[in-house]
């Protein structure tokens, strides 16, 4: 029986790996996700057959209640709110891991002094990472959801205090490992980790939350893996580790796309000081164009690259934008979308937002693939994006954007920018692009302007 259980757990782990592997192509991705779900179902069923389980009442209640919440969340959530949703789920996963680790300690009870060193070490790590993930994710989600001020909250000695809390946790953990009988130590460790979860995320600005969410994704996996060590359960270790690496890879990609180090994102409090000098700068004039002018240019364009930013989604203009793209395509133009890695509020977010608006995914092109094409493009149409097309990233050494890879929209023959106002992007850096001779600024709400364009081009 035990051997069968382990073999079936192994099968579940294989399904997880195959499922992630199938995510490498949009054609097979949905099947891959199904594989993952099947692996999970298998693991749960195998576990329920475990002889150690004597009472199913609480289990069923928990499964039904949790399942119901999960279904409602998954059905109701708006695609724009996906980062918060993933954040919350990360937090729950991390919290569950910490709880399991702790209840294992409670279960060991009297026998705890016999618990081996490795169980104790991983128990402490699981408590630490799990609780930190729970609270950190809740704060990140609250910031993304606008329930909390998204600007960094800074106070003196912040880093030092956080370091001190972490040190405190580790020291307490050390004592606890040495004497597992100190039953109140885990509670203090959890309490401190919860505090650290809050204090380590509040100094991070809203624009950097995608990195935090990715990092929390990694932590939730790691917490699972640590709990796997505590329970000597290999499927937990495998699944947790896979998720841990996945989150880490995504974190790394996001940092690279912003040309920032992880340390800089976590500790620098970027976004706190919107540079005042920019606001008192000389008033330069940009040339304003009307949607009629824009439609006239688009009418004769052979090739158009659309650069969508999060502002597009805020204005709910994805659907009408795709309508515009369709009309232009029918007129014989080659229309594609250029997706910057940090477009949206989490890795790959913009792709989901456009897919929801029925944009075929083969028209969504990554930055590296499309950047050389701008020079042969008639119109680069920028909607709701700012920092990712700011040439200051190439040239202006003192800019916070300097070194960030950007979309080469300024190489296109005409640059069309649809924007509400002249305000700076998240980074607080003014955009030289708007003053370019090739640039047509069309001011207004993205949805209104694009709807207008659609009407003009149809007629």
């Amino acid at each position, binding site marked *: 029986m035990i051997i069968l259980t382990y073999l079936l757990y192994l099968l579940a782990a294989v399904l997880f790996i195959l499922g992630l592997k199938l995510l490498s192509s949009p054609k097979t*991705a949905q099947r891959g996700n199904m594989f993952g779900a099947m692996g999970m179902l298998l693991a749960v069923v195998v576990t329920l057959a475990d002889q150690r389980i*004597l009472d199913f009442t609480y289990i069923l209640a928990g499964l039904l209640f949790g399942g119901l919440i999960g279904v409602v969340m998954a059905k109701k959530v708006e695609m724009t709110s996906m980062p918060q949703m993933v954040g919350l789920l990360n937090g729950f996963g991390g919290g569950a891991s910490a709880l399991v680790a702790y209840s294992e300690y409670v279960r060991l009870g009297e026998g705890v002094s016999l618990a081996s060193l490795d169980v104790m070490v991983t128990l402490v790590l699981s408590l630490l990472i799990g609780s930190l993930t729970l609270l950190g994710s809740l704060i990140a989600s609250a910031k993304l959801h606008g329930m909390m001020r998204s600007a960094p909250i800074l106070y003196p000695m912040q880093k030092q205090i956080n370091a001190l809390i972490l040190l405190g946790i580790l020291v307490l953990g050390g004592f606890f490992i040495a004497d597992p009988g100190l039953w109140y130590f885990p509670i203090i460790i959890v309490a401190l980790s919860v505090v650290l979860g809050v204090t380590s995320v509040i100094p991070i600005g809203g624009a950097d939350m995608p990195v935090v969410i990715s990092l929390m994704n990694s932590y939730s996996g790691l917490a699972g893996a640590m709990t796997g060590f505590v329970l000597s359960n290999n499927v937990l270790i495998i699944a947790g580790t896979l998720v841990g690496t996945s989150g880490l890879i995504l974190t790394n990609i996001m940092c690279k796309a912003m040309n920032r180090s992880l340390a800089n994102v976590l500790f620098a409090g970027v976004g706190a000081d919107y540079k005042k000098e920019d606001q008192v700068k000389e008033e330069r004039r940009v040339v304003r164009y009307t949607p009629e002018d824009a439609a006239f240019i688009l009418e004769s364009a052979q090739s158009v690259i659309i650069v969508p930013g999060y502002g597009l989604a805020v204005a709910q203009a994805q659907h009408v934008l795709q309508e515009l793209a369709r009309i232009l395509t029918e007129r014989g133009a080659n229309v594609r979308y250029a997706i910057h890695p940090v477009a949206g509020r989490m890795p790959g977010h913009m792709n989901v937002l456009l897919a929801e608006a029925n944009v075929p995914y083969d028209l969504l092109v990554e930055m590296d693939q499309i950047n050389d094409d701008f020079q042969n493009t008639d119109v680069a149409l920028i909607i709701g994006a700012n920092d990712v097309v700011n040439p200051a990233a190439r040239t202006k050494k003192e800019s916070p954007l300097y070194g960030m890879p950007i979309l080469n929209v300024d190489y296109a023959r005409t640059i069309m920018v649809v924007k509400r106002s002249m305000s700076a992007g998240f980074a607080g850096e003014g955009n030289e692009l708007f003053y370019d001779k090739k640039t047509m600024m069309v001011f207004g709400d993205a949805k209104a302007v694009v709807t207008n364009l659609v009407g003009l081009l149809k007629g």
Partner: protein
Amino acid sequence: MSETLLVSIYIFVLATFVGIEVISKVPPLLHTPLMSGSNAISGITLVGSLIAAGEGHGGLSVILGTIAVVMATVNVVGGFLVTDRMLGMFKKDTKGKKELNAS
């Protein structure tokens, strides 16, 4: 160091390499579904919480276990379903049929 721990460390290290290998092949196009889907997989901690909630020892262990079951189930069910919903939106450009897909 016990043998079990040693085996676990082996698995941990090898799984890291498998993870890096598999995840780096996922295109940026699918990074959001990757996050939500892998997130659901990390809900595997459900397995541990089931045992904690069902052992019938009563008291604290069961209460904590049950809370853990709820949290992990939200994670698993919510994660897989929302990933499925998202992936269902990704469609290829099939020229003429495109309009049919438009809801």
